[in-house]
């Protein structure tokens, strides 16, 4: 499944929540770089779209607002016993597309 967004709708420093079917995707523009991550924290289901963005030497991380689990926005890795799902983003002129693989994406609440 694919989600399309106008780049103008996501200026640097902003974030948007988009849906691909029943899957919620949190999309962030961090200094011009676009990251897409499943909105549901694998810990207790907190909304990553409301998370705290932090820049680290390894790249940006998003920290869940509920209990603080942090995820690398590039690959979803965490030092906690769980991993967030990230999605590839492609640029097409003034539009971006996010490829949301069907199947393994929904975390039950």
């Amino acid at each position, binding site marked *: 499944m694919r989600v399309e967004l106008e780049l103008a709708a996501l200026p640097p420093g902003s974030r948007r929540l988009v849906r691909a079917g029943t899957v919620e995707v949190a999309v962030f523009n961090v200094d011009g770089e676009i990251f897409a991550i499943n909105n549901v924290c694998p*810990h*207790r*289901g*907190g*909304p990553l779209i*409301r998370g*705290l963005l932090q820049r680290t030497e390894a790249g940006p991380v998003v*920290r869940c*607002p*509920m*209990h*603080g*689990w*942090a995820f690398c926005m590039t690959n979803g890795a965490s030092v*906690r*016993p769980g991993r967030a799902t990230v999605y590839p983003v492609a640029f097409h002129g003034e539009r971006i597309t996010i490829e949301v693989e069907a199947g393994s994406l929904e975390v039950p*609440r």
Partner: protein
Amino acid sequence: MEVDTFADAALARLTDAELASLVAERASWSLTYGPQDLELVAHALRCILHAERVPAMRAEFEALAGVQHRDGGFAPRSADAESTVWVSAFCALMLIRGNAVLASEPLARSVRGAIDYFLDTQERDGRWVDPRWADLDTTSHPVSFFNVVLALGETHRRADVERAWRAGLGFILAAQAGDGGWYDAEFHPSGVEITAHLIQDALVAAVLLEGRADVASSCARGLGKLRSVQGASGSWDDDNVDHTMDCVRSSMLVARLLARHAPETLGDLAGGSEPGWIDRGLAWILAAKNPSGWPDFPGMESNLERSCDGIDTLIKYRAYLGRDPERLARLWGYAR
């Protein structure tokens, strides 16, 4: 919303309606239907306990005991093999409190098994560790369980329990910051939820159980910290429903118990300032509710865990309106 107090009858109707929804959704949280997320199970059973429906739900407590591991602990998901501390404490709390009503020997054995688990897993410096939670948060849960063990007069390994309980309290007290809050740079940078957890779940019971003046002072400073960071809307942590419910519940219990047992610690937290601050928090929580329950943030879809927290908050607020500190303490299991 400007509210001083809420009509008890209206709150009772809302609580009953939410409880009815919870029971109607039993297949989503009940172990009698199959494997479950045990933290969700424990959230639901806490509502059952506080709604005084334990005898009718006996099978739920027996099913919870049925997924306990040989080491006395529980896993985050009931079908998983590895015990972890946080969820084990939440489950153990439901078992000991449920069994205070049911008086079942098999459940009593489960409680003793849980005591063994926490005695076996405590670190040398008094903390407990769970990779899913901050160490301070994790430690608050077994301490809370031991609070109830001591309050209810459970005698299994009593001397060991008292020693472990004091060590856990010591670990928490030593970590309090100068501004009265507790912080974890990784899990809880704002310190709000962790402070709310620690003063209600771990610390304040020691004021009841032993009249500890140092703990009363620590709780008062923690309470002051919570009040100082409440948002203008009445919420905490930028409209975080979970954290606001934690702060309201914590503030109700600690304010009432300190007013009864250590009023000298409260300073300007006593008297006129207390009602406005807690009631504004509850007003915000009520405004954040969806037709189907509570979400993590206003405008989102509700979820069962947060809805259980909402029910628990309503029940405790009604007790808070009654102004009887012992009634509130019973809702944490800290009094018979």
